């Protein structure tokens, strides 16, 4: 493993803090769903925090991000206000989408977070369109779209790889390969072992990285983002990771096998990053505990804020439908 010398302790600690914040948020998301504070469901990105943080750190604030229903972590990493996010999960008026979107439809245009999408791969061409707008405007901005490996079997994804390569669109598609499309493991659902292999067929760059280490993710993402920004065209970056114990917080999608369900704990990027920070970067464990407890408090406060936020009133039911 490389220790990129340009990473300061401050940066590493910020990343660690962000990962802890995402974890604390997700635990509250699951907890409040189970408590009945909101209906529907929620798809935690537990065990995938290194991807959120490593990728976001490779972007400029004006780069645009699109993500999926498993997108709370990407929203936080892009700088969305945690209170507004939690209020959105609870479908409250102070939510980032005024409580109309909920867990699967998060957006904050001010932060250039252009939304999470609940239809698999549907946002990939949309992200390509925004990236194409960047190219037309020559504004130097890069667009990033995250998706799971299940969505890489969709036509919209494959069509977009083709068009993004054809038009050299400044787009980075990040596949979070957690090995499962709801219940179907990738070895049953995918014709290729590595999703990144799809890129070659369309004449675009494909790369693979260990998705459970933010330093490695960040380095790989930087290469992809630099290529897109400098006019070198799109990249499909595959981050290998492990999924939390089920597809979503409702019981459907639970792994049949308990050992499989707990696999994420062995791969957990947070303790793994802690170990690197202590052993390779000389950071004190106590300092990490301090950050962790701060983020817990931040998430607690966000939950309290969300609970106290008003519910949209009946006369607002059809707001925002038309421009």
């Amino acid at each position, binding site marked *: 493993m490389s220790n990129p010398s340009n990473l300061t302790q401050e940066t590493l600690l910020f990343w660690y803090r962000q990962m802890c914040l995402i974890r604390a948020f997700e635990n509250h998301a699951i907890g409040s769903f189970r408590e009945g504070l909101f209906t529907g469901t929620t798809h935690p990105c537990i065990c995938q925090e290194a991807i959120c943080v490593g990728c976001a750190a490779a972007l400029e604030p004006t780069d645009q991000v699109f993500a999926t229903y498993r997108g709370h972590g990407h929203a936080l990493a892009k700088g969305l206000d945690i209170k507004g996010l939690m209020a959105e999960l609870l479908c409250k008026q102070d*939510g*980032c*989408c*005024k*409580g*109309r*979107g909920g867990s699967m*439809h998060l*957006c*904050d*245009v001010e932060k250039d977070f*252009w*939304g999470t*999408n609940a*239809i698999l791969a*549907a*946002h*990939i*061409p*949309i*992200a*390509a*369109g*925004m*990236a*194409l*707008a*960047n190219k*037309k405007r020559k504004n130097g901005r890069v*667009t990033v779209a995250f998706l799971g490996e299940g969505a890489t079997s969709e*036509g*919209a994804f494959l*069509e*977009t790889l*083709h*068009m993004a390569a*054809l038009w050299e669109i400044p787009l980075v598609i990040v596949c979070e390969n957690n090995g499962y499309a709801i219940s179907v493991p990738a070895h049953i659902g995918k014709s290729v072992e590595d999703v990144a292999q799809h890129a070659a067929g369309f004449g675009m760059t494909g790369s693979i990285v260990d998705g459970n280490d933010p330093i490695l993710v960040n380095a790989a993402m930087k290469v992809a983002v630099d290529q897109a920004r400098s006019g070198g065209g799109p990249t499909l970056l595959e981050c290998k990771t492990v999924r939390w114990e089920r597809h979503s917080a409702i019981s459907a999608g639970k792994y049949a096998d308990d050992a499989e369900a707990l696999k994420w704990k062995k791969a957990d990027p947070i303790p793994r990053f802690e170990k690197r920070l202590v052993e390779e970067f000389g950071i004190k464990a106590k300092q990490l505990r301090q950050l962790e407890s701060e983020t817990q408090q931040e998430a607690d406060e966000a939950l309290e804020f969300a609970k106290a936020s008003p519910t949209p009133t009946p006369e607002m039911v059809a*707001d*925002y*439908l*038309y*421009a």
Partner: protein
Amino acid sequence: MAEAINEALRHEMRRNPDITLLGQDIGPYGGTFGVYKGLYDEFGVDRVTDGPVAEAATTGIGIGLAMAGMPTVVEIEFIDFITLASDAIVNQAAKMRFCFGGQVNVPLVIRTPIVNRLGLGAQHSQSLEAWFMHIPGLRVVVPSNGADAKGLMLTALRDGNPVLYIEHVRLYASKGEVPEADEPIPFGKLRIAREGKHVTLATYSGMVRPCLDAAEELAKEGIECEVLDMRTLSPLDRDGLVNSVCKTGRLIVAHEAMKTAGAGAEIAQSAQEGAFDYLEAPILRVAADDQPAPTGVLQDLVFPTKEKVIAAIRQVLL
């Protein structure tokens, strides 16, 4: 009508340098039916961009451009192919603004023609507009003549919402006066194509002409039909419809889409809700038969005609 649409696109592209056209065969070729003639030469490849055959991604890319503030026109060459882009239209374009609490606008126009009675068979002969009336968040526009086509296209390009703009292959060559001036036509306002007092014919797109011809023919017998060109199906001008039905007491809805769950069902029900006490006869629908369009001479049997409209008028006047 093709020239009128072309004129509207050209006019608006000169006014708004952000407008982009995407699709297949829209570049130097000028579009399958010539609607884009000359636009590539005037605006160049960056704004009139030929793409691969990929309706789903092309429409999605159009949405992304639109969200970025570049109003985009996506071409779907035949309305039958819109099935390939349906997720982008139904789940994405139409939902985005609502789901995101008003943060995002999608100024996207999807241009697509109905192409029927050309002997192209079941996969190239449908009128699928009713599906999209069922999706709030979308506008559905169905012009029948050049003047309306131009005015409605100007509105579509400025509306800020996703618009499904449905043309008709048989109307492309139709002639008529088209205003030179910048005169957008608001959505949700029907046009009274002919005034009358005995029966209302509510129609749109390719059936406006047969309805006018039927009205002309019956006028010789003293039967005066009021012909309403609905122009937009979403929003639907329910008030204008009800006003006419209250006056005539009789309604026939005519369209080339199949009868079952077609736009006519919604139009008829709207009239029933608003003008029940005024109705003198059951509302009838003149529509395509509920079956795929055959090729060859059989195709003429399934589509509505002037004669079928006349027969329906006689029936409600019995």
